[in-house]
């Protein structure tokens, strides 16, 4: 789908990232886990898994891929994601 994003949406903002995280938070919290935004640095985003899923490689993969895809879809300027 070709649509031009307004400028503010193209930029990586804390609010924008939180919006993406909030899409999956209810599920994570229901399972005793959570995801935390550590920080936004330019185009890079760092998040951290907490709670029960924190040590699980599978959850790590799921969230890394999922959040990265969602961020890329919503923010044209998005660069990299690190899951701490």
């Amino acid at each position: 789908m070709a649509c031009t994003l307004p400028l503010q949406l193209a930029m990586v903002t804390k609010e924008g990232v939180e919006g993406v995280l909030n899409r999956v938070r209810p599920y994570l919290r229901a399972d005793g886990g959570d995801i935390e935004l550590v920080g936004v640095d330019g185009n890079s985003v760092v998040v951290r898994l907490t709670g029960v899923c924190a040590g699980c490689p599978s959850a790590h993969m799921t969230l890394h891929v999922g959040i990265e895809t969602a961020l890329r879809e919503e923010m044209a300027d998005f660069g990299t994601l690190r899951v701490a």
Partner: protein
Amino acid sequence: MTTPQAVSMDSLVVGHSARMKAVFEFLRIIGNSDSTVLVTGESGTGKEVTATVIHQNSRRRHHPFVAVSCALFSETLIESELFGHERGAFTGAIKDRPGRFEMAEGGTIFLDDIDDVPLSMQVKLLRVLQNRTVERLGGTRTVPVNVRVIAGTKRDLKQLVSEGKFREDLFYRLNVLPITLPPLRERPEDIPVLMEHFLQRYFRRRGEDVPPVSDAVRQALIRYPWPGNVRELENACERIAQTCTCGAVRVGCLSAGILFRAGGPSLAPPPPRQEPTEDAAARVPSPPVPAPQPMAPVRTTQISLDDRIREVESTLIRWALQASGGNKSKAAELLRIKRSTLGDRINRCGLRHEATAEAGG
């Protein structure tokens, strides 16, 4: 060609939805018939499983079941695949080779993706279905074949007919016993049952018991629209069984695609995103499938067994009346019940009006 897995009616997990139950009842009814079946359903809804079940429950079960995807072959190859060829029929035809129809002798042939058969080939297929004989490519001999034909398609054939992409006469020849398999998103109440079933299969394969599954996972699976239908759900369960390390199935075990689509940009129910043609295919009329059930709450607290049974019963009776043009004796025969029993049931289900309307129309 694939070899069928032994699928008995009882071992099959179909779920609780009235639609699937109706499909299942229909399969029981048509098992012993030799008529052509047309299975319509989106990718992953179980067309081949359905074909296998029909075969396994027919008197042809001790004969071959041959499944061919018509999408696999080019226009020239498909004729030789289906009907075989004689030595020298074309470059590379170094020996005689029987076609899939001959290989299925006495049994059932499942022609999947029938809509992918090119128009020129459709005429030939029609002849085979009408005369029950095949002629090998480059041959002059006519070989009689005793094969039950089940055709499968993802698309609405009627639509393709109106667009001139599918021969009308072939459509009518195939559409004798139509079955429409509902997409998984239209029967979300079946998702938990299917999930348990697949998790059990894949955890057992690893020699493990199924760990407890969190409510969040169930919710996510129910909210997800499953464009790949049951096949996609099966794959998701296989993934869970392969990656779960913590002794409990939690949302982290799901794939990113499922979790994020289930979460969605908004918390509104996700919009259907199927292609219109596929969607239309799901609505092909005629098989005895009750109207889609309203989205069931995640944990249905109560269902009325009697009501559900009556629902299935009246759907099938309606179908039989329609199929027999309102002739109750014929309808009773189709349902394998006595004529008098049918009368009673028609009254019980309150179908008297429809019965007379059908006879009048």
